[in-house]
């Protein structure tokens, strides 16, 4: 039924466009000067015909279920049910009304089902009536307006402008969505687990809190020592550190080489080739780290007499570093290229060699931009998920030995949420709390890095 109403609105919108245009042409035939191009008359009529009806339709569809539920449940309001019991009754009523119900049917339930069906049919009928009358009213209003040859272009453009503005709010809505989806679960998590335990606890073992029987009394002792996030933060920053140890020297040096030394031909081929590294999906890096790099490091370790776990922080961090190389190299390449030529010329004129110029003049001048690019790389390393999930361990060890396995925030989120989740379980909430901290940490890094890069750009523009 909803689909039919929707298509009707759409079709009416299209037809009224032609109708409005024709009307404009008719007005023109009577030798009156039009206030806008004929198509704006069409747009005007079509917008008035479809948009108010569509808004009402959407609002109605959103609120109808809640209102019907309220009305059905008024019968039970003075019987002292809990809210989840009421929900259960309502679900039963709904399935009985649709004929899917297979449980025990009581008189109450039958009454409610009949009421539900009754309300539903009233709702659909009145929806059709309301939508249709709104279409008629608003179209008549707009038709009268264009018959009087009022201005049509300005309102249409105002409407388009409003649509453009609404679209630009999508970014804000997404951010709000992220914050809201994280914050409620996070608050619920911290109402069970003390913030202090989360920040300073050194044991992360959420599997410990698994309960077979959800209705059983929850033992608060169980949550002790299960949600201490220190090992995760340590693992995250440790792996990010290893990654940056690989990415910074290689990325920076190749950025410098490409911008200062490389001939046009080398630049033409080497730059896109290095950027391929940025386009490879992270799951592919993860597979490569787990299948090739990990065993390879283990082999070397055994030959050197070292104990190397086949899922080591070194394998994950190293491969992650290679993934980040192109970010640092192309950003620092841009930054170095934008250092004014006069600085170089001045240095050369004093007799400095190229490398001396780079080290003592260009690098300090470009430093803020380079720091910004490194920070963006760090934020990427912290947020990277698949490489760690596949190549480093899933158990959170508090260790700073690169040859052992550690886990990160992102990997733990995946471990907790893979498969079926139960909302309301502190384990699931823990994942959201971790997501919240991850979001905040990367947000701070990004804001900071973007600010540095921006002030740097303004300096030489």
């Amino acid at each position: 039924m909803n689909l039919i109403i929707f298509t009707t609105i759409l079709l009416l919108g299209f037809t009224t466009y032609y109708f409005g245009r024709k009307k404009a042409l008719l007005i023109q035939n009577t030798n009156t000067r039009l206030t806008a191009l004929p198509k704006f008359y069409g747009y005007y009529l079509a917008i008035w015909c479809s948009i108010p009806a569509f808004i009402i339709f959407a609002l109605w569809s959103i609120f109808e279920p809640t209102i019907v539920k309220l009305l059905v449940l008024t019968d039970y309001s003075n019987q002292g049910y809990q809210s989840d019991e009421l929900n259960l009754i309502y679900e039963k009523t709904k399935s009985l009304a649709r004929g899917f119900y297979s449980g025990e049917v009581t008189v109450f339930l039958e009454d409610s089902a009949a009421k539900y069906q009754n309300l539903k049919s009233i709702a659909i009928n009145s929806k059709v009536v309301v939508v249709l009358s709104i279409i008629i009213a608003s179209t008549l209003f707009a038709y009268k307006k264009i018959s009087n040859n009022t201005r049509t272009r300005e309102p249409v453009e105002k409407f388009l402008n409003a649509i453009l503005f609404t679209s630009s709010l999508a970014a804000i809505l997404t951010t709000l969505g992220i914050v809201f989806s994280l914050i409620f679960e996070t608050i619920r998590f911290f109402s069970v687990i003390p913030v202090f335990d989360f920040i300073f606890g050194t044991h992360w073992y959420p599997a410990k809190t698994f309960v077979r029987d959800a209705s059983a009394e929850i033992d608060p002792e169980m949550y002790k020592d299960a949600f201490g996030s220190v090992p995760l933060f340590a693992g995250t920053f440790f792996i990010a550190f290893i990654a940056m140890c690989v990415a910074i020297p290689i990325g920076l040096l190749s950025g410098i080489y490409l911008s200062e030394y490389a001939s046009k031909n080398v630049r033409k081929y080497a730059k896109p080739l290095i950027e391929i590294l940025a386009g490879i999906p992270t799951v592919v890096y993860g597979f490569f780290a787990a299948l090739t790099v990990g065993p390879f490091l283990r082999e070397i370790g055994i030959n050197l007499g070292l104990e190397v776990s086949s899922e080591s922080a070194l394998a994950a961090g190293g491969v992650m570093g290679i993934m980040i190389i192109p970010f640092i190299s192309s950003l620092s390449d841009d930054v170095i290229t934008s250092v004014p030529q006069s600085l170089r010329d001045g240095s050369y004129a004093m007799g400095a060699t190229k490398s001396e110029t780079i080290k003592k003049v260009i690098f300090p001048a470009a430093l803020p931009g380079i720091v910004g690019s490194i920070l963006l790389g760090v934020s990427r390393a912290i947020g990277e998920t698949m490489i760690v999930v596949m190549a480093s361990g899933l158990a959170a060890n508090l260790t700073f030995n690169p040859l052992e396995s550690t886990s990160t925030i992102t990997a733990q989120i995946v471990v907790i949420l893979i498969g079926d989740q139960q909302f309301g379980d502190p384990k699931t909430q823990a994942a959201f709390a971790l997501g919240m901290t991850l979001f905040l940490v990367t947000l701070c890094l990004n804001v900071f890095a973007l600010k540095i890069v921006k002030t740097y750009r303004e300096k030489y523009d």
Partner: protein
Amino acid sequence: MTKKEILLKKRYNSEKRFKLYGQFAIGFALLFLFIFLFKIFSTGFTAFQKTLLKVDVTYDKELLYLDENPTLEDLKDADYYELALKSMADLDPNATEEQQNQLKRMVSYIFDTEIKNHLLKNPDLLGQTSSVLLTASDDLDQVYKGNFPRDIPEKQRRVSDYQLKIYDQLVDDGKVISNFNFSFFTRADSREAELAGIASAVVGSFFTILVCLVISFPVAVLAAIYLEEFAPKNRITDFIEVNINNLAAVPSIVFGLLGLGVLLAIFHLPRSTSLVGGITLSLMTLPTIIIAARASLKAVPPSIREAALAMGASKMQTTMHHTVPLSMPGTLSGTIIGLAQALGETAPLILIGMVAFINTIPMSPMDPSASLPVQVYLWAESAERGFVEKVSACIMVLLGFLILMNLLAQIVRHKFETKWS
């Protein structure tokens, strides 16, 4: 040598060294890329071949429990399992019961269906003997491709001595052949490596990207137009800008949490579907496309706008008729690159449940489906050797799509973009 000359030499050496470091850094990055691609291709290309065993099957009416003149319907309904079992056992007439069991395990578990399909294609074969191509089991397939060493003790091998003996006999008779693995592209995922294919993952990825495109492209382009052409300079638009730049750098897994916490938990959209995956990824690609579209709008010279305004066009007409069409090539190529990123994204899809084992090919975005990167993850976590080459092959397909999309973006940019000098 004077002190000065020594110093000069030192400085020149350090110059050379510095240049060498740079070359070394680039060389390292390229070497890794080369090793990486070589490793993936060398392990993956065998997955495009499939090993088949040529087995003689006698279509015996009695074993199929058919009467004298069966119709095609009867042939369809008959049970071929016993016949198939006997055909495999016939490979070695002296086999014990245990050995017969091993013989059965030399082919995939759908061998009765394969025998049935062969008969349905040529119904005249009933009562006659014909050689049928059966998909070899995953383990035998790996032996044929040389991935399983044969000289280690029997207990550590997945293929027994007896199976190897029969296998060698078949090889000598020229009854083991290798064909192009069509089923890798036409079948959905399976627990058996020899039967697993990427069809459901490819279709799922296609739907996901389609949903992502349909949602993110219009919204992003409209937002970019507003911010670049219409937005007054005030706090709200500043805030929107900062927001977009930050969203572009938010870790992808956070978008997965958003999909889980809002789309699944609040809006109750169906789990594991490409619809939810596409919406989640569209939120992620939104900032990328907005940034690309704004850059290409900015690149349209002001003279175009001024000319249109001078001819009496309104601001909206100037934008919609002149600026936006001229910026489209840049916007489109940015969109394609954003979609390519979305295609390779795994973590958010795992969180919204697209890791479920799906052995059907999805027909619409509302069906549960897999996606290519998640398929890579799933197979990489499987223990069987047969899946290693499948993962690499799946990666090759994924990389192939990514290369195609990036090429397309380049072509769009270079062919259609107006160069303003």
